[in-house]
């Protein structure tokens, strides 16, 4: 079985304009106009796996994905999807794609939007009529099908973006930072959705700059840094086992327990009847989980989370410049 995505020696060099802006000021560049976004990347994604493309901001993740989707053209090297050249319409019809921070036509309602994109995929209207409500349900916004997208929150846009990437029942799903801008519950739901896609036999490739998002679900990852691949393989081989924080999700905790959680947890997020508490100390997290299991409420999940990718870089590479690249909010 050939790999679903096969990337060989992929390189992308951007040539900046003579006149451009930098930090809001006009800047004229006469030399050093070349910027290497991706250097000699080799990568294979096998059928049926969840593949994580990881790296801090500016590592070349989005560039790789844009080239794969035919939005950018590589400077050299080659890439094939399902054995075909990039940009081949017969291949594109088997791919679902969600870009980073997607923006859609905000004058369309959720259902109108999905119908339009379905037409672009060439899905017939009978199938669309059936699939659109299903997909809205799947991503958890079935109540918002008749609302124009300009009334959507960021999380809802991300969800409808996921829905549009599944319209054609794709074999390969490529998601660029699918969890960015989502709250902890949203992140968990995206994780669950990706796992569900794998169960349905689809191949998933997604990018992230947060290791925690990737480590629980990825079969394999590649780590990019400044346009170069610095590691790939199963995640557990690549990272230390150092755990930074513990996430406990619960529902219906007793008032006494909730008061204690508020005291010991670093932060706590509430949504509807669910609570998500983040602990620094394993013992505190374990104590809460134990009380929940003893009937003081209901334990939904217990997640130890590893250090962020930035932390990994700072520690492993010891590159001071990596610190400067640390993204805000990561």
């Amino acid at each position, binding site marked *: 079985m050939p790999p679903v995505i096969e990337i060989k020696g992929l390189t992308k060099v951007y040539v900046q304009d003579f006149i451009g802006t930098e930090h809001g000021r006009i800047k004229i560049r006469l030399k050093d106009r070349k910027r290497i976004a991706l250097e000699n990347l080799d990568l294979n994604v096998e059928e049926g796996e969840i593949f994580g493309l990881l790296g801090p901001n500016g590592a070349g993740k989005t560039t790789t994905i844009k080239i794969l989707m035919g939005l950018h*053209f590589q400077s050299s090297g080659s890439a094939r999807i399902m054995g075909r050249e990039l940009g081949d319409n017969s291949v*594109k019809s088997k791919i679902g*794609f969600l870009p980073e921070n997607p923006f859609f*036509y905000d004058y369309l309602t959720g259902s109108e939007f999905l119908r339009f*994109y379905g037409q*672009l995929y060439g899905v017939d209207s009978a199938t669309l009529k059936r699939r659109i409500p299903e997909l809205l349900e799947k991503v958890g916004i079935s109540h918002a099908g008749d609302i124009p997208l300009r009334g959507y929150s960021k999380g809802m846009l991300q969800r409808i973006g996921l829905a*549009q990437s599944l319209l054609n029942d794709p074999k390969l799903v490529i998601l660029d930072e699918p969890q960015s801008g989502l709250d902890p519950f949203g992140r968990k739901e995206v994780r669950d959705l990706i796992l569900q896609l794998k169960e349905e036999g689809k191949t998933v490739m997604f990018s992230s700059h947060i290791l925690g998002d990737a480590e629980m679900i990825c079969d394999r990852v590649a780590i990019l840094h400044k346009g170069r691949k610095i590691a790939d393989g199963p995640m557990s081989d690549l990272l230390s086992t150092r755990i930074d924080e513990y996430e406990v999700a619960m529902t219906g905790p007793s008032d006494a327990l909730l008061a204690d959680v508020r005291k010991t947890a670093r932060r706590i997020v509430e949504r509807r009847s669910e609570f998500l508490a983040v602990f620094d100390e394993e013992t505190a997290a374990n104590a809460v989980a134990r009380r929940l299991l003893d009937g003081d409420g209901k334990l939904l999940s217990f997640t130890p989370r590893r250090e962020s990718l930035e932390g990994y870089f700072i520690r492993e590479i010891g590159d001071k410049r990596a610190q400067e690249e640390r993204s805000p909010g990561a």
Partner: protein
Amino acid sequence: MSKIVAIAFNTFKEAVRNRVLYVLLFFAIIVLLGAWVVSSLAIFGADKIVRDFGVASINIISVLIAVFVGVGLVYNDLDKKTIYTIISKPISRWQFLVGKFLGLLLTIVVNILFMTFFFLAVLYFRDYTSEESMTSAIMTAADGTYRNPSGAETLMYYVGSIFKSLANSILNVVSLGFYSSEVTAGVMRASMLTMLEMTVVTAFAVLFSSFSSPTLSAFMTIIVFLVGRANEDLYYFADLIQRKAGGVEALQGGQALTYWFSLAASHVSPNLAVFDQREAISQFMPVEISAYSAAYALVYAGCVLAIATIVFNRRNFK
């Protein structure tokens, strides 16, 4: 094909939900009503002024729609990155451009029909309410004896005229001018020529907005329109310079520059004078839509879109 149609209808929806379009249409209504006001100031030839004014207004407002609604359409998709999710679908870049073009053209055609309808309504209403026709109508109603109409009679007459004008203009637009007199049919045909002209202008708007910012695209599209309108004049101008100097070889310095520039501009720009029938309209001559002008519009627009596709195919979407 169905994908192009999907993009075209979505573009139409986008344009229809764009505020700029309504500002322009409101402006069009004011200007077309203004034609009536201007004509009442004329001592003679009021009919000529109204028709001239109306046909020219429809033409110019169509250009403004093509420019100000059109140039933003492709650019917005690039700027807001909606293009990412469209180009990643099984659709080619040329299909996207052609869809955008057709959607914009549909918007303009619908707007030209609306403006023509409104203008014809103004024309008919003006005929119905002219002093003679009012007096004669009231006289017939009053058994041939003359008397001043009462306020209520005048009001009823006006209301009736409004309905008659609307009905007439609807029939005229729907029948594409075949229903009515030669003069009003001429207005209808002039509008159809404007649609053909807009086919060319819209193609340019799409071409420019596929590689530059909306402001620059708007500017360049307007330049193309103006130079295109002056196309034949530029050619004759170049010819005149050359003949005055006694041959191309005798041209010197600035003269030579003017000659070559005018000649090049007249060859490169579209000859939009083909679609200009305002003279015929104002002279009450029949307006003709020739197969040549239709073919010219389609072939020219096709070529411009082909160039746009070549440019667009090489782009990295940032």
